[in-house]
């Protein structure tokens, strides 16, 4: 199997699942709706009582965490689509053809990146309407986008594991619920120093806080400092583990 074939096959299969999304764009809308509702709730209902210790609008403080929630709920559709492909037998059809062995998985992963990028763009657009402003330069924006991309790839491979291992449709997307909840116990909504000891300890040492702080600093035009490296380490570590796990799970299915 030549490498060019593997790339060409991945492109074909990515085109296929992107077409699925185009024919049911509700998956992108659904992904964006919950984070937008969350943003409205926190900015216009709860936000007035939240003391972030900075003078920027609360929506600006909130946005990084909301974007992580968007991605966490968006990747659930990857496991959902992969599960349906496996159940419908089309994965077996693809695997019995002379195509790149990993093309099926990469097709779903690349589709996830595109779909999540669109959802994230929708949420950012709504945040702009709600008063989100950033003085960051192009480089800082690219940096923030890069972290989000890395986060999406890592969570998507985790979604692949979930899709490959699931026994039911509900099970396929259930893995994302704790991920969507994780930003609540982080610096995403309120500063961690307002939390009681053990909760604050958990919040300060879980990946969402570092990622949120890094993106927040970048969009605020500041140096992200140590948070950036911690965030990158979490994302890369998760990516390596999730990828290896996904590939091992996939191979085991084909025995």
């Amino acid at each position: 199997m030549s490498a060019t074939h593997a790339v060409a096959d991945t492109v074909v299969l990515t085109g296929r699942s992107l077409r699925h999304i185009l024919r049911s764009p509700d998956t992108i809308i659904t992904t964006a709706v919950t984070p937008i509702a969350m943003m409205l709730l926190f900015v216009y209902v709860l936000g007035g009582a939240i003391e972030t210790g900075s003078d920027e609008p609360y929506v600006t403080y909130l946005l990084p965490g909301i974007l992580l929630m968007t991605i966490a709920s968006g990747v659930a559709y990857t496991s959902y689509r992969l599960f349906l492909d496996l159940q419908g037998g089309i994965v077996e059809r693809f695997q019995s053809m002379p195509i790149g062995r990993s093309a099926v998985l990469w097709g779903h992963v690349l589709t996830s990146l595109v779909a999540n990028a669109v959802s994230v763009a929708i949420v950012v657009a709504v945040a702009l309407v709600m008063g989100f402003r950033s003085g960051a330069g192009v480089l800082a924006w690219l940096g923030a986008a890069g972290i989000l991309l890395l986060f999406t790839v890592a969570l998507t491979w985790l979604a692949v594991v979930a899709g490959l291992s699931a026994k039911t449709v509900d099970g396929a997307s259930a893995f994302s619920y704790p991920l969507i909840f994780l930003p609540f116990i982080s610096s995403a909504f309120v500063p961690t120093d307002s939390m009681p000891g053990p909760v604050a300890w958990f919040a300060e040492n879980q990946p969402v806080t570092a990622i949120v702080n890094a993106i927040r600093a970048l969009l605020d035009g500041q140096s992200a400092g140590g948070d950036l490296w911690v965030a990158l380490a979490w994302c890369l570590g998760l990516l390596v583990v999730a990828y290896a796990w996904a590939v091992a799970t996939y191979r085991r299915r084909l025995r």
Partner: protein
Amino acid sequence: MSTATLSPAIRVQGVEKAYGDLAVLRGVDLDVAAGSIFALLGSNGAGKTTLVKILATLLRADTGSAEVNGFDVRDRAGDVRESISLTGQFAAVDEVLTGRENLVLVARLRHVREPGAVAERLLERFDLVDAGDRKAGTYSGGMRRRLDIAMSLIGDPPVVVLDEPTTGLDPQARIEVWKTVRQLAESGTTVLLTTQYLDEAEHLADRIAILHGGRIIQNGTLDELKKLLPPARVEYVEKQPSLEEVFLALVGEQVPSAAGRES
């Protein structure tokens, strides 16, 4: 390829496969001559699908060897995949895509030239031109199965495996599939067909093997298999039409034995 024409299209020797403690195949031996229709007969759970999946490189045998078109399924998996096409038990078509898009998708993945033209020709051949631009999810069982078989013919694989191609189909759709299988064999393709319907094997196959208890317990032509039983006695029985014959007469289709006609 001279070696491929001399040796059988499929050769299975001593294949065993167990899922945990459950031994599904306990030493299967099987040769399928090139260009023939070979029926693998067995009840539900006999291991037909397991054997088919081993041939299509989707599963690995625990022991034994299997060759497709002269290529070992373990060592030359890539060549095997070029040689064989599997039509699964549950008609794996993409329901969101149209019939035409399904064909183009497979044509691209099989790296054939002019995928669009290939798809067009197959839509015509399988009587799906009118439905070609409709989502496959809206197809009837028979159309869906025809699309499924059309997809597996792209790239002209010399060996086509049909895993229970008529399970769950109504009688008319069943006749459509039979007609397709005969046409395939006429064009020189080797067809391995698994089925749990005895009449299907009787109507279509050049040779029939019975898979039972994880082994091939009989293998021969229909006549050879019939000779295994005591010779026929002549009895006079009132000939009642079967319900299938009644059904097909009422809805205006011919009975299976005459199904080869052009419509």
